[in-house]
């Protein structure tokens, strides 16, 4: 207990800054395919919008049609369906309702006493980039060499053999955004992964998902760069603005060249390329920001340069500016009850989720933690209870969105995942009971209609390469 305590918090504070800016509007009406929809691949010298130099190689695993019946379904799209049924077929949700037609070859599961929800989505994880075991050699989450490292991509640090992945899956997590740490004002690109076994990170990448940009406010950057600057919050703000000024010039230069192709192409620059993609609306901004007053300033900076912030992460003071978040459609990716590990986390309150919800902004339950990610459902339950204590009633049918639809929206994927509706990806969790109970566990998890986890069958459990020999079968 003593061993990790203080260290954990310090590392956390550093590791856990995710920021993202986005300018993506509401999702498109058409449902994009989950395979192959890539932007043009630039050749190495060209700074092309929507370039995809490390394309996803994920393919939905083979699956049989599956019916779960006689089960309570929290859809995140409307009221719950008691004694309902759901059909998963060809990777999609094919039918849902009081009953469904089971195809002849379907696996049929009786869900009596159990619950079905969409797969849980975490907007904030460092799995893979801060892999277990947490030795120095596995510490790949913070490129803490410059306050602005927009040029780095989290996926280039992700170790697919991180044993934290299968444990998250067993907690019902089907999709997670992996972010660079929060040492930097601008930490680099995030990547959205499906929680599946793979040899390469490309094999985990969510096809067609937008990238995120991690930005970080406050104490972390100014502490890390105290000797060279920024060493103050005003230094932080100058740093963001300088970066955007350069990015905007870069974007204009390139957009002009891409339009007329006259003369030699401008010099390509990885950092400005990422930032220019934010300004074009192709990358979503995820902004680690604890304090309310800093969130308000980050909103102004985003307006100054014409981008949008998609989600404030770790916004322990989101409740103080929940009206602003609602006004500008910014989600709050927050914890149920972390606080006081540093000054900017001092005013954390347990009703943060409920107060944000009440103001009409999107509450997102996030983890920033390989243990917490396994029990995000319990964190949401704490948020409901804290609201109730304050006189704010939030139904479970609403709160399930904190874990599914709202994070999906924050990642720009709410047209494909995050709720139970016909045509959406069949990312589904079968829970042993009400997911807001401390006693409930995920029993089975499907991703794109394929069963990826079954608690009753430990022999089939996903064990990463690292675990072989080191971690005995069933020991988790």
């Amino acid at each position, binding site marked *: 207990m003593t061993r*990790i305590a203080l260290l954990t918090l310090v590392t956390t504070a550093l590791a856990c800054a995710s920021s993202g800016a986005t300018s993506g509007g509401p999702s498109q009406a058409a449902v994009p395919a989950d395979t192959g929809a890539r932007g043009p691949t630039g050749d190495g010298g060209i700074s092309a919008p929507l370039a995809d130099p490390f394309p996803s190689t994920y393919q939905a695993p083979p699956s049989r049609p599956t019916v779960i019946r006689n089960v309570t379904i929290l859809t995140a799209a409307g009221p719950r369906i008691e004694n309902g049924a759901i059909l998963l077929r060809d990777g999609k949700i094919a039918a849902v309702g009081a009953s469904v037609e089971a195809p002849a070859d379907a696996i049929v599961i009786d869900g009596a006493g159990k619950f079905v929800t969409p797969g849980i989505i975490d907007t904030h994880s460092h799995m893979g980039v801060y892999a277990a075991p947490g030795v120095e050699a596995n510490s790949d989450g913070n490129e803490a060499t410059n306050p602005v490292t927009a040029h780095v991509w989290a996926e280039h640090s992700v170790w697919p053999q991180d044993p934290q992945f299968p444990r998250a899956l067993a907690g019902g997590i089907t999709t997670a955004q992996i972010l660079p740490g929060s040492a930097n004002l601008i930490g680099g690109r995030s990547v959205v992964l499906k929680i599946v076994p793979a040899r390469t990170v490309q094999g985990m990448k969510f096809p067609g998902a937008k990238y995120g940009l991690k930005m970080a406010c406050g104490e972390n950057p100014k502490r890390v760069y105290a000797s060279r600057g920024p060493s103050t919050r005003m230094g932080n703000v100058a740093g963001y603005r300088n970066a955007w000024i350069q990015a905007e010039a870069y974007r204009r230069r390139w957009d002009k060249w891409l339009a007329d192709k006259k003369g030699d192409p401008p010099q390509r620059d990885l950092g400005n390329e990422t930032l220019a993609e934010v300004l074009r609306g192709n990358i979503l901004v995820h902004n680690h920001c604890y304090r309310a007053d800093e969130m308000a300033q980050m909103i102004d900076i985003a307006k100054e340069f014409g981008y949008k912030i998609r989600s404030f992460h770790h916004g322990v003071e989101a409740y103080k500016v929940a009206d602003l978040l609602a006004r500008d459609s910014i989600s709050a990716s927050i914890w149920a009850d972390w606080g006081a590990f540093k000054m900017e986390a001092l005013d954390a309150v347990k009703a943060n989720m409920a107060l944000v919800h009440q103001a009409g902004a999107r509450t997102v339950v996030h983890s920033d933690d390989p243990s917490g990610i396994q029990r995000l459902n319990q964190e949401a339950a704490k948020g409901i209870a804290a609201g109730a204590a*304050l006189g704010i009633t939030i139904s479970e049918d609403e709160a399930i969105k904190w874990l599914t639809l709202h994070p999906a929206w924050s990642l720009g994927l709410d047209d494909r995942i995050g709720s139970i509706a016909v045509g959406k990806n069949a990312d589904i969790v079968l829970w042993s009971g009400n997911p807001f109970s401390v006693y409930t566990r995920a029993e089975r998890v499907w991703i794109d209609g394929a069963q990826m986890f079954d608690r009753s069958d430990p022999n089939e459990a996903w064990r990463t390469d690292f675990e072989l020999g080191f971690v005995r079968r069933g020991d988790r």
Partner: protein
Amino acid sequence: MIALLPLLFAAVVHAQTIAIVGGRVFPVSGPPIDGGTVIIRDGRIAAVGRDVAIPEGAQRIDASGKWVTPGIINPATQLGLIEVGQVGETRNATARGRDETRVNAAFTVWDGLNPLSVLFAPARNEGITTVAVMPAGGLVSGQAALVDIVDGGVSEMLVRSPIAMIAQIGNPQGANVSSRGELLLRLRELLEDSRAYGRRRADYERAQTREFAASRLDLEAMQQVLAGRVPLLVVADKASDIEAALRLAREYGVRLIIGSGAEAWMVADKLVAAKVPVMVGSMVNIPGSFATLGARQENAGLLRRAGVDVALIGTGSDPDAYNVRNIKQEAGNAVAYGMTWDDALRAITLTPAEIFGVADRYGSLQPGRVANVVIWSGDPFELSTRVEHVFVRGVRSMSPSRQDELMTRYKTLPPSYRNP
């Protein structure tokens, strides 16, 4: 050593006789009593049972449909020792020490306890009435104490001090040594020298002994450990480290407690044989280091089933200040992974009281016990359950925390804040 009297005195002044009636009562020391009554008088529990006469003038609290338990004990915290994690001036859980190995046996961490920490109220409002406050760092971190969350100074809060000497096997860097074996070597050297010092105090004062590996006060503090009056709580996760601690304890006749214990389930039989209690979290399952490759959530349940005395501790940020309240979630998750519900309640009430030698006063609802009592809206482990009343030493003790004040302020913005 036991600073209970002054406070009880205060309790006598303030406390009324209280009758909690109609609730589902969990004495922990015995089976649950449906529709039971708990009488609190003069800071103590006067009676518990189904057919208990309610004294004249007693204040009745209707607990119909509610659950009544002993106050929850969180047996590993830094409550009052750390206010803001990254603010050095508010951190008072560690001693730097005079030597490189960082042996701080004489460090009595409660001397730096801040009774006005704003983190006490949130813990107490969620049913935590008693916490162990623990030093951290080094090879021997120092001495821990048990405190009640009552208003007053440190001397009023103290239940018992010390309750344990804290040491660790598992983090060589933390003690400026190079390997786990060297940690053992240093611990053995400390125990040897403490024993020699104890036998030759007079020679020591005349400078007629060889040089010892620790300061006089540290050697002196170790005497209570060697005499078996104070247990040695060894923080260790790796199964082989736990076995090493068992050998060391046997060799020196030291009473041992294992803390953290991620792989303790692997050596459950040896812990049972040695009658060594274990304090573990229930949500530890990541091979976060090479010492925790065998971490699994079934740990607490497996240990208990094997016959080990198990107390539950926080998983997240270990000796924790801010989320001391989450010990109830630990209990719930322990149940989800195989511990019985009764054992889980015991693991955050009576078992820690036994481990720290205060079970005659704490951890159960029995006549004569200190009246730390919580009334819950339902199952105390369930996340939707709320605390209705908390009594500490017989005094009704819920009060708005700083966090409550912030929530109230922002629930409806005050006029001066309406402009963004």
